[in-house]
């Protein structure tokens, strides 16, 4: 079954939906960094030190991301091979959206962002927790948890904020097509489809714009103070 085109798309859709779910959870926690820094610190410490999160959810997430982009590359390669001689004139915009025709481009930008994001947050976390062995999550200077302060510090840089904003715009484009497309891939089509598609389109805009808001909030806050 895994060798068929429909099975590959089914797997692509499931991994995509899983990432969509994760994105919502990530957004919820990040939003608390704006409205309730203490809650953000508590949640970050929980996520960073809870055994279940670290030993089960985190590997599943990493597998999900890696599976998704590798399958994306495989599909893209096969699809290119399926049209071995190209058209001299091809009017893609006449019958399909830019987002749907360029999932690999939006995907690659997201991948580049993930590399940056890992260097920014994940590698320092691994370093502090597992190499230095400091699982306390406390600031060296004292005065509570370090997570919120680290986050605020990261968004002081213009360049980083610009990179994040660009990545989230492309994430919105990726999800604009991808989220609704995944329902079709799993064969879901009935009287609820219209409503679900509208929900997916709203989600595709609201969540990335929300992430952009959080990044800009911390950046502007830094500029003002």
């Amino acid at each position, binding site marked *: *079954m895994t*060798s*068929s*085109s*429909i*099975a*590959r*798309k*089914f797997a692509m859709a499931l991994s995509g939906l899983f990432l969509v779910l994760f994105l919502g959870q990530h957004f919820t926690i990040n939003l608390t960094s704006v409205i309730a820094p203490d809650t953000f610190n508590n949640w970050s410490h929980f996520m960073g030190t809870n055994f279940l999160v670290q030993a089960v959810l985190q590997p599943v997430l990493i597998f999900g991301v890696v599976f998704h982009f590798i399958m994306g590359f495989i*599909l893209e390669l*096969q*699809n290119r*091979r*399926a*049209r*071995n*001689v*190209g*058209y*001299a*004139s*091809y*009017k*893609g915009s*006449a*019958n*399909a*959206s830019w987002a*749907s*025709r360029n*999932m690999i481009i939006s995907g690659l930008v997201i991948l580049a962002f993930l590399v940056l994001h890992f260097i920014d947050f994940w590698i320092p976390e691994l370093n502090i927790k597992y190499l230095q062995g400091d699982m306390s999550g406390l600031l060296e200077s004292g005065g509570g948890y370090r997570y919120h302060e680290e986050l605020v510090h990261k968004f002081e840089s213009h360049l980083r904020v610009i990179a994040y904003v660009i990545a989230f715009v492309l994430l919105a484009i990726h999800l604009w*097509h991808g989220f609704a*497309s995944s*329902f*079709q*891939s*799993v*064969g*879901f*089509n009935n009287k609820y489809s219209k409503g679900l598609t509208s929900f997916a389109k709203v989600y595709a805009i609201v969540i990335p714009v929300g992430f952009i808001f959080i990044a800009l909030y911390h950046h502007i806050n830094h500029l003002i103070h």
Partner: protein
Amino acid sequence: MKLTLKIWRQENAAAKGGIQSYPIDGIEGDMSFLEMLDVLNEQLISKGDDPVVFDHDCREGICGSCSLQINGEPHGPDRLITTCQLHMRMFKDGDTITIEPFRAAAFPVIKDLMVDRTAFDRIQQAGGYISVNTSGNTIDANAIPVNKEDADESFNAATCIGCGACVAACKNASAMLFTAAKVSQFALLPQGKVEAATRVLNMVEQMDKEGFGNCTNTGACEVECPKGISLENIARMNREYLSASLKG
């Protein structure tokens, strides 16, 4: 009207092809696109040149033979029509029109604008039928009642003429819309349910074997399909396929 035609010319499957320019004059808006090509070919033949080879048969939008990628779209800029139904009034005096064969690894060029679409026949042969013995045993078509919505949806799927515009339009050269139409027309009817699982598995397997691309759900096929075959058929085929593979 006066036009410049840029046409893909290719001697045979093995030859390297290329675009050639042909000026043409005296084209009327009431002519069909194929009649316009007939005019060109008459001129080429009277000059002793090789006429442009293209597929056509019924010239009334029911056989699916005529193909052609016209200015980057299968069957040209109009909607819900085949190339034989495309009127020259869709173009303006002085226009340049690029005419290419439908492009897909699974549709190799035979000559010029004519491609080999027998991959569709093989998909159909893999399961696009029901096994009934009809010799001397004809069954009344109305003996099994079918509910109206199912009959209508099945009929809509069955209007697919196998032209290949869906493949030509798709950025991935995917044959999902065609295969989904052929799966759906049977899957919706009681007569087709008996072999539904093996049908969808075999037809999808053949579709993949022919080298068509995967579906990205861009929807280009539905927009370009001369018969308005709906994307819902693809969702139905995905559903049928997934449940058939789970059953083993």
